[in-house]
């Protein structure tokens, strides 16, 4: 299966993040989960696979 990781156009990091706010009520859960993960990472708690590696 061919799975490219990037589109040929620049999707824009900010433009990807804003889609958590344009997605309506369902998006709120994603926002909470993402920030919860960020807090855990900041506090160095959590499983290793939750740690992002820089791209």
């Amino acid at each position: 299966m061919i799975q490219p990781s990037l589109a040929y156009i620049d999707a824009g990091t900010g433009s990807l993040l804003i889609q958590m706010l344009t997605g309506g009520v369902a998006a709120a859960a994603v926002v909470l989960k993402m920030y919860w993960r960020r807090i855990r990472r900041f506090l160095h708690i959590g499983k290793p696979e939750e740690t992002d590696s820089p791209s």
Partner: protein
Amino acid sequence: MTEQEAKTPRIEPGSFRDPDSRVFISDGRVLRLLSELGLADWQKLSSSPLFAELVAEGKLVGTKEASDLPDLPDALHGAVAAALEHDVIPFVSYPYEWTFSMLRDAALLQLELVERAIKAGMMLKDSTPYNVQFVGARPVFIDVGSFEELREGEPWAGYRQFCMLFLYPLLLAAWKDIPFQPWLRGSIAGIPPQECRKLLSRRDLLRRGALTHVALHARLEQRYEETDTDVKKELKTSGFNKELILANIRRLRKLIAKLEWKPGGSEWSGYELTTTYSDDDAKRKAEFVTEVVRSDKPGLVWDLGCNEGHHARIAAETADYVVAVDTDTLVVDRLYSALGKEGQSKILPLTMDLADPSPGLGWRGLERKPLPDRGSPDLALCLALIHHVSISGNVPVAEFLDWLQGMKTALVIEFPTPEDPMVRRLLKRKRVGDHPDYNRGWFEQCLEQRFDVVRSEVLSSGERVLYHARPRA
């Protein structure tokens, strides 16, 4: 272009951005070469019921797998895996030549396709109005190569492009009465979020969609400009899914469908109503055009200065296709709506300053073609036009005729004499003696030097003369 040149396959210079799909023009055929990845996406699309539905609805260009391919130069990043052949669009146009309603309809088509693609397990990899063309007054999506397999958990990669090339131009026109055409002609990538934000007032931020699609979008873009964080991965692990994209699309569709452009004032909107042209002159003009299109049987007609499209409609009765152009965007917007209601598929309405027609734009000035390079007319109607181009636009009479001569087109051209009330009004705005070349004698001399004048007719008012001229062999 010679016959041999027309037969030689050439790369469509506007199609290089997607490395998996490249368009060629060969002997009037439109061919698309696909990479291995492009082929996998095409197979996914063509085997889905969505493809047949969209083509049947006229929303996606007719496409089949190509046979008897000519020798094509290597143009993809990798090996060519397959080739497709598309139905030919009669005349290519660009968003900076469209009116508000045209760009809005193109935006709604783009959103509809994204929504339906997602539901069929696919996605559109980009979001550009250059992927939409108009056949008459009907928008058609032409980039079959834009469809790809949906990658669950990823956000909509084309959202930023959608904002920059569809949403913001429409918002500026609807909210601020700022024409988007010069912005899009000025930047092929569109209006960036941070620039759009600067154009909105605090009051504008209270409008539906302004806070998220413009203000916060701009803020986040600025904040994350330098980041190395893999946001896509982060969103995926946080549970981002296609339902969020669908919710965004639904909101955008609602927002855009309600947008209206209410211009403050338009130069020619009431021209046909308030003009000094007598009924008899108007009737004779229509008859003159009818006689010429019947005798010359032109394939492609340009109606330059089309106004409400009266003569374009006459030409469309016999011609294959008519491109109707006017400087007044509001008049063309109304014409577009009227043609849509009539189901007219032979008249393409466009807006453009005819003293400054669309040039070549983009990479090396080749990506977006100048107007004549997209198909020279067999007949150009220039009715009640030359005084605007020559007096208001300061284009010398001889140079305007040079431009028409260069296209090897036949002409129906009207010369309003300096006694005509509109000409007098235009001349009054200039210094006395500013336009010495604007007189009937010089016009006729220039016309006869460049064309074979078939006949001419002085209209009953005596202040306007019609000419039928053919290009020299």
